[in-house]
């Protein structure tokens, strides 16, 4: 019965865990290791985690494991392109050079930028912008007031914009 429940929860939440770890570390290999660690913790605490609280519990544990993992690895190089190392353009516009607000940036660069954010801002940006989790859940996971989460999201986006402005030299990429 325990194994059945565990497999059901894993099926429901494994992508949430994996993507949170992947965007935190910008590495698919690290994301797999972190996901394994989180799932093992879920197994060992299965009897004490209430069904309604599983999502926030997993988000919190994933964040903690990501932080521990990254501290052990010391730092994530801004020069890493992540697994594959391929640059893919989302869009390409010549006029982007004139107006920074319209700048369109490669996916890898955005992932690097997210991975470069301070841990708290990084987690909030991932949970809101990529995983589209509600603010209430993020606030509960991070143990922060709701308004603080929104302010941190704003700051995270701002820092990311500054990072990308500094990194982008040639906005035009041809496939």
């Amino acid at each position, binding site marked *: 019965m325990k194994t059945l*429940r565990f497999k059901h929860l*894993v099926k429901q939440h494994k992508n949430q865990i994996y993507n949170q770890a992947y965007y935190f570390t910008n590495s698919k290999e690290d994301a797999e290791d972190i996901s394994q660690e989180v799932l*093992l913790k879920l197994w060992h605490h299965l009897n004490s985690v209430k*069904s309604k609280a599983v999502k926030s519990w997993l988000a919190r544990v994933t964040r903690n494991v990501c932080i521990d993992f990254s501290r052990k690895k010391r730092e994530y190089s801004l020069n890493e392109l992540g697994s594959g190392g391929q640059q893919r353009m989302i869009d390409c516009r010549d006029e982007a050079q004139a107006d920074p607000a319209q700048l369109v940036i490669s*996916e890898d660069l955005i992932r690097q930028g997210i991975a470069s954010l301070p841990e708290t801002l990084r987690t909030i940006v991932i949970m809101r912008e990529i995983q589209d989790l509600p603010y209430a859940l993020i606030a509960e996971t991070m143990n922060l007031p709701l308004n603080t989460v929104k302010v941190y999201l704003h700051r995270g*986006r701002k820092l990311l914009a500054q990072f990308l402005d500094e990194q982008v030299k040639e906005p035009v990429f041809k496939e």
Partner: protein
Amino acid sequence: MTCQTFEQYFVDYLEGTLSSELMRDAEAHLHQCRQCRAELAQQRNISAQIRRLTESQCPDRVLDSVLIRIEQDRQRFSWRTRFQAWCRAENALWKMGTTAAAAFLILAVAALFYQGGEIPSRQPLQYSAEEVEEARRDIELTLAYVNLYTQKTGHIVEQQLAAAHSAVTQPVQNTLRLQLRSTGKAVTQPLEENMLEPVNSLLHKYGGIL
């Protein structure tokens, strides 16, 4: 509204969740603050581009690895594995020592219970036969409902499982532990795992109860 104040409402403004009064103040501020207007446009763009990042699928090998580790941990800590390791132990002196210690312990416990040539009778069970019977019915009804629901819907109904566990009160749990102990099974795992075998046999016996 100042730039500092507007920062607190930035996200709500972008998402259109401000009250009408605050929305008016925010728009009045934006009308006269070029910096905040530029920042707003920049944040809209950044947010849109982040949201284009696609979610990746967690590889199946992650769960496979986890299940293998869980099984390895189970085997490592099982009594059988420990006993086999003890049998394989090369240190004969250690084996003799542990055997002697175990024998001494058994004799010491027997001496405590042995009184003047008479073997004392076993302590009676905590619950009467009627209480045991009532407890058995509680367990079988609650878990039979859960199993039937699961079979019919194909869902693992977590709320019902939680309700079933909470319906199994402490006296019932104690009774089940006593029943299991009488069969010689070790109660080392969480209660719900040990329920499977006796419950399944009870369900087989009382199948028509629902």
